[in-house]
C-alpha cells in the first residue's frame, strides 16, 4: 500500500501481488488466437498497436514538414515531395490515427465493461472493423510506397480528379475502406449501449465516457457514408471521367466541397467527443468527485453531435457559396461552440471542493482543458465570417486544428492510455518519467503551434513549401517546438513498453475509481464479468466505493 497524502494510488503489496493467471491475454496463446479473436479487449489491443504504428509514420512526416519549413528556401525536399508529405501526414493522422484513436482502442476496451456487458454486441463485426482498418491502412501505405499522393487530406476537386498524376485512387479507396471500419465501430457501440447495459445501468448512471462515445458513434454512422460516396464519385471521375464535379462538363466542384465537409466537419467532432469522455473520467477520478452537472455534460455531447451536422459550410466561406447561406452557417457555428463551453466549465467546477491529486492522466487532462479552450476559441475566430476571410487557408487554421486535435484529442488519448494502462495490462507505468513526458509535450506543443497563430494572422498560407523570409523567426520557433514535442511523444512509447514487463503490479483499482471496469480484475477475464453485475449506484459515486471497500475489508480481513 503506497498511499501518501499527495496521491491516491493504491497498489497491492508488490512482494506478494501477481497478475491474475486467468485473464484475457493469457486465455489463449499464439498470433492466430489474436488475429481471430472476438474479444473486444484483444481487438482494442490490436487497434492500439496499429494506430501507434501509423501515428509515428504520420509524426515522421510532421517532422520532415517542420524541417523543410526551418528555412524560407525550398531546400530540403522538392515541392511535390513536400505536398506529398503534408497530404500523407493529414490523411494518416486523421483517418488512420485520430478517428479510431480513443473509440477503437480505449472505447473498445472499456466501454462494454463500463456498462456491464460481456462484449460488444457484434464481436465479429468488431474484428471485421479492425481488418477493414488494416486493409485501408495497407492501401494508404501502398499509395505511399508507390510514390505518394499529393491532394491534401481534403481531396479537393478538380485538382484531385483531373490535375494530379499521383496515387489518388489508391489513397481514396484506402480512406473509403477505413470509413467502413469506423462505421462498424460506431454501429457496434450504439447497439451495445442500447441493448447490452447491465441491469440497473440506466442511461443516467452511465459514465460520461459512454455518453460521449455514443454521440461520436452517431456521427460515425450517419456522416461517414457520405464521405464514402463522395470518394467513390472522385474515383469514378478520375478513372472513367464521369462529370459530377467537373466544371468543364457542367458539374459543380463546390458540390464536392459540400459533400466532403458534410462528413468532415462532423468528423472533427468524432475526433474530439471521445476525448472529452476521457477527460470526464479522469477529472472525476483524480478529484474524487462526481462530475459537476452530469446531465449537462451528457446532453452537451449529444448536442455537439446533433448540431455538428449543421455547420459544415464554415469550411467554404470564401469558396463561392452564397453569402446568405454563409450567414446561416456562421450563426449555427456559433451555436455549436456553446456545448463545448458548457463542458469546459463543468470540468473546472468538478475540481471545486474536490480532493485533487496530480497523477499523469490528470496532467494530460489539464493540458487538454487549456489547449482545447485555446483551440476552440480560435475556432470561433474562423466561424466569424469576416475574420475567416483573412484567416482561412493560413497557418492560423493549422494552429487551430492542431490545438484541438493534438492539444485536445491527442492529449486526451494519452491521458486515457495512462489512466487505463493498469487495467489493460495489469501493470503501472512509471510515474515520474511519465509526468516529465506530459510536461515536455505540453511545452513542446505550445512552442510548436502558438507561433503558427501569429504566422497565420501575418498571412502565411498553409501548404506552402517555401515562404517569404520575414516569416522565418516564427517558423524556427515552431520547428524547435516540434522537436521537443516529438521527444514528448516518443517517451511514452518507450516507457510504456518497458512497463509491460517491469511495471508495478497494479491490482484491480489503483486509482480507486468508481467505474465498473475498476471493480473487476486487471487485466480482465475474457468474459469481463463472471456474473452479470447489478448496478445500484450512480456514476462517480465515491461514497458507494468507500462503503464497498470498507465492507470487503471487513469481510475478507
Amino acid at each position, binding site marked *: 500500500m503506497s498511499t501518501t497524502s499527495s496521491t491516491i494510488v493504491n497498489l497491492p503489496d508488490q512482494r506478494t501481488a501477481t497478475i491474475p493467471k486467468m485473464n484475457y491475454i493469457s486465455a489463449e496463446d499464439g498470433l492466430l488466437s489474436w488475429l481471430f479473436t472476438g474479444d473486444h479487449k484483444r481487438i482494442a489491443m490490436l487497434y492500439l498497436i496499429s494506430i501507434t504504428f501509423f501515428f509515428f509514420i504520420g509524426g515522421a512526416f510532421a517532422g520532415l514538414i517542420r524541417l523543410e519549413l526551418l528555412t524560407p528556401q525550398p531546400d530540403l525536399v522538392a515541392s511535390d515531395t513536400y505536398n506529398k508529405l503534408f497530404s500523407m501526414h493529414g490523411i494518416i493522422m486523421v483517418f488512420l490515427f485520430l478517428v479510431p484513436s480513443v473509440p477503437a482502442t480505449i472505447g473498445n476496451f472499456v466501454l462494454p465493461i463500463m456498462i456491464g456487458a460481456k462484449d460488444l454486441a457484434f464481436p465479429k463485426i468488431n474484428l471485421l472493423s479492425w481488418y477493414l482498418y488494416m486493409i485501408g491502412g495497407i492501401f494508404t501505405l501502398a499509395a505511399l510506397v508507390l510514390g505518394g499522393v499529393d491532394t491534401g487530406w481534403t481531396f479537393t476537386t478538380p485538382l484531385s480528379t483531373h490535375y494530379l498524376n499521383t496515387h489518388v485512387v489508391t489513397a481514396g479507396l484506402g480512406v473509403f475502406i477505413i470509413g467502413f471500419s469506423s462505421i462498424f465501430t460506431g454501429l457496434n457501440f450504439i447497439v451495445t449501449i*442500447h*441493448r447490452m447495459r447491465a*441491469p*440497473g445501468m*440506466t442511461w443516467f448512471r452511465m459514465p460520461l465516457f459512454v455518453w460521449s462515445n455514443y454521440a461520436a458513434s452517431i456521427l460515425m454512422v*450517419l456522416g461517414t457514408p*457520405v464521405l464514402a460516396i463522395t470518394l467513390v464519385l472522385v474515383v469514378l471521375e478520375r478513372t472513367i471521367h464521369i462529370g459530377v464535379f467537373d466544371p468543364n462538363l457542367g458539374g459543380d466542384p*463546390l458540390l464536392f466541397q*459540400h459533400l466532403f465537409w*458534410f462528413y468532415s466537419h462532423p468528423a472533427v467532432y468524432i475526433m474530439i467527443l471521445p476525448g472529452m469522455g476521457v477527460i470526464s473520467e479522469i477529472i472525476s477520478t483524480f478529484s474524487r468527485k462526481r462530475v459537476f452537472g452530469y446531465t449537462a455534460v451528457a446532453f452537451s455531447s449529444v448536442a455537439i453531435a446533433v448540431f455538428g*451536422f*449543421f455547420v*459544415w*459550410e464554415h469550411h467554404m466561406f470564401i469558396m463561392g*457559396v*452564397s*453569402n*446568405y*447561406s454563409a450567414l*446561416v*452557417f456562421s450563426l449555427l457555428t456559433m451555436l455549436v461552440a456553446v456545448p463545448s463551453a458548457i463542458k469546459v466549465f463543468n470540468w473546472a467546477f468538478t475540481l471545486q471542493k474536490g480532493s485533487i491529486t496530480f497523477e499523469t492522466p490528470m496532467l494530460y487532462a489539464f493540458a487538454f482543458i487549456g489547449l482545447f479552450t485555446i483551440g476552440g476559441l480560435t475556432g470561433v475566430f474562423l466561424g466569424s465570417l469576416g475574420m475567416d476571410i483573412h484567416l482561412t487557408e493560413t497557418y492560423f487554421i493549422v494552429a487551430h486544428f492542431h490545438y484541438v486535435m493534438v492539444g485536445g484529442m491527442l492529449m486526451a488519448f494519452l491521458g486515457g492510455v495512462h489512466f487505463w494502462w493498469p487495467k489493460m495490462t495489469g501493470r503501472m507505468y512509471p510515474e515520474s518519467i511519465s509526468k516529465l513526458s506530459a510536461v515536455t509535450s505540453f511545452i513542446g506543443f505550445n512552442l510548436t503551434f502558438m507561433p503558427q497563430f501569429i504566422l497565420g494572422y501575418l498571412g502565411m498560407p498553409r501548404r506552402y513549401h517555401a515562404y517569404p523570409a520575414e516569416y522565418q523567426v516564427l517558423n524556427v520557433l515552431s520547428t524547435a517546438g516540434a522537436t521537443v514535442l516529438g521527444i514528448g511523444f516518443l517517451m511514452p512509447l518507450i516507457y510504456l513498453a518497458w512497463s509491460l514487463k517491469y511495471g508495478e503490479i497494479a491490482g484491480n483499482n489503483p486509482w480507486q475509481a468508481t467505474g465498473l471496469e475498476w471493480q473487476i480484475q486487471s487485466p480482465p477475464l475474457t468474459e469481463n464479468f463472471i456474473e*452479470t453485475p*447489478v448496478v445500484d449506484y450512480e456514476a462517480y459515486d465515491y461514497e458507494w466505493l468507500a462503503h464497498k471497500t470498507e465492507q470487503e475489508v471487513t469481510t475478507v480481513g
Partner: protein
Amino acid sequence: MSSHHHDPANVTNPEHAEHRIVQPGTYIAVYIALLIFTGITVGAAFVDLHIFNPIIAVAIACIKAVIVILFFMHVIFQSKLIKMTVAAGFFTFLILIVMTLTDYMSRAWGLW
C-alpha cells in the same frame, strides 16, 4: 437463466417490442398496393401536370417506400427505438438536402 437478469424496466421499455409474425395476407395486400402505385406513377408521367409531375412522382415513391418500411420491414410492429432510428436516418438526409440547398437556392439572390 436467473431471474434478476431481466430488467423489470423492460416491460414498458420503449426500446422493446413483442415480436410479432406478420401474416401473408398483409404481404399480399401490400404487394398489390405497390404494383398499383407503380402503375399510377407511370400513368401520371404521361399526363402533363407541369410542376406537379415531379411532385406526384416523388409523393408516390414516398408512399410506396413508407408502405415497404412499415409492413415488409415490420417497422410498424417494432419498438419506438427502431421507429426513431428510421426517422433519424431520413432526418439526416433531409439536413443534407435542405442545408445544402440554402447555398444553391440563394446563390443568385440579388440578381433579379
